[in-house]
């Protein structure tokens, strides 16, 4: 079963800790989406908080017809628009449909809300990460590429690489750990 769906079912059964995991998983992405509307980072956090609270209250009605993130994304967009309306500011003319959530970052009209600095940082980050992957041992690099770029499950990767699922898990973790250290260097963390 999809882990998001399982987490949602646990929340519906009364397990609030499961909702914390959903927040941890998606808060960065949601805040980034909201920043496209609100711009101010502090305000974006407030709107994101409001969006998650709305999602929690609506979660008993979530039936799994769409992916959880798509549903959450829709709530975040509506919350952002309502926030702008209440502040008497006009929301962006483009209305990104929830079904296009995965293509959101391709929308040129919305990219104009990124600052030049953040856009540059984003490109630099991606470039650095891809270079980091190239510097990994071959099996580790293959495992993370199959997972992140091809979207394969651990079971599928194990079949392709002819190794146990536990080995796949270990390789992906090592790759992710190495990528995380590169990101820390770029963002000046851990100094």
């Amino acid at each position, binding site marked *: 079963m999809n882990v998001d769906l399982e987490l949602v079912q646990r929340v519906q059964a009364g397990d609030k800790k499961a909702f*914390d995991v959903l927040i941890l998983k998606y808060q960065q992405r949601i805040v*980034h989406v909201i920043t496209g509307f609100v711009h101010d980072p502090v305000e974006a956090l407030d709107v994101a908080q409001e969006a998650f609270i709305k999602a929690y209250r609506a979660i008993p009605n979530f039936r799994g017809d769409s992916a959880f993130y798509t549903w959450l994304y829709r709530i975040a967009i509506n919350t952002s628009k309502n926030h702008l309306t209440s502040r008497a500011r006009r929301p962006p003319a483009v209305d990104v449909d929830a079904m296009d959530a995965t293509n959101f970052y391709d929308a040129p009209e919305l990219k104009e809300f990124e600052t030049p600095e953040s856009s540059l940082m984003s490109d630099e980050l*991606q470039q650095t990460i891809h270079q980091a992957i190239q510097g990994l041992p071959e099996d580790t690099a293959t495992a993370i590429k199959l997972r992140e*770029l091809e979207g394969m499950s651990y079971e599928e990767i194990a079949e392709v690489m002819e190794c146990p699922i536990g080995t796949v898990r270990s390789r*992906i973790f090592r790759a992710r*750990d190495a990528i995380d250290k590169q990101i820390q260097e770029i963002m000046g963390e851990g100094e």
Partner: protein
Amino acid sequence: MTVNQNELLSALVDGELQGEELDDALQLLDTDEQARLQLQRFQHASDVLHGHGFGPRNVDLTTRISTALENETDFSEIVENKETAQVLAFPKQFWKQAVSLAVAASIGALAVVGVMNQPQNQLVPNPQLAVVESETAPMNVARTGERWTVQEQEVEERLNSYLVDHHEYAGASGVFSYARVVSYDVGR
């Protein structure tokens, strides 16, 4: 944190945990602040690889949201209340028949509105029609040949259209099953 715990969090990012392992991960996140930070970092790395952009890395909204949700109703209570609540629902057939009856009554009311003028020497007995009291002006109805007509053309056209458009209710179960509605106009 141990390597196993880190692997657990990495697998959680990929949605590859179920059952007991998912329980272990939730327990770890609930008790270990470092685990929560690590999960965020792994998730961020994945987001960047997927081109999900440059967002704040060390933001954690869980505490703020948990505080805000402290007074929210626990969903398990809501589920229990739903199971014990008794709702008396009318059967679907009841509503279907009620609607049919209402439509038939309105058609019948239209059909008997007005007063007929009968010549004194006609051989056909003058039927006694029920007069429906209404605030609208009565229509003048006269017999022309083999059909009754309403002398106000506009009213006749509207009545004709109404009868034709709702003829399907004539066969509604239990109501008007023997009725047959015909059109004044040829071809309808």
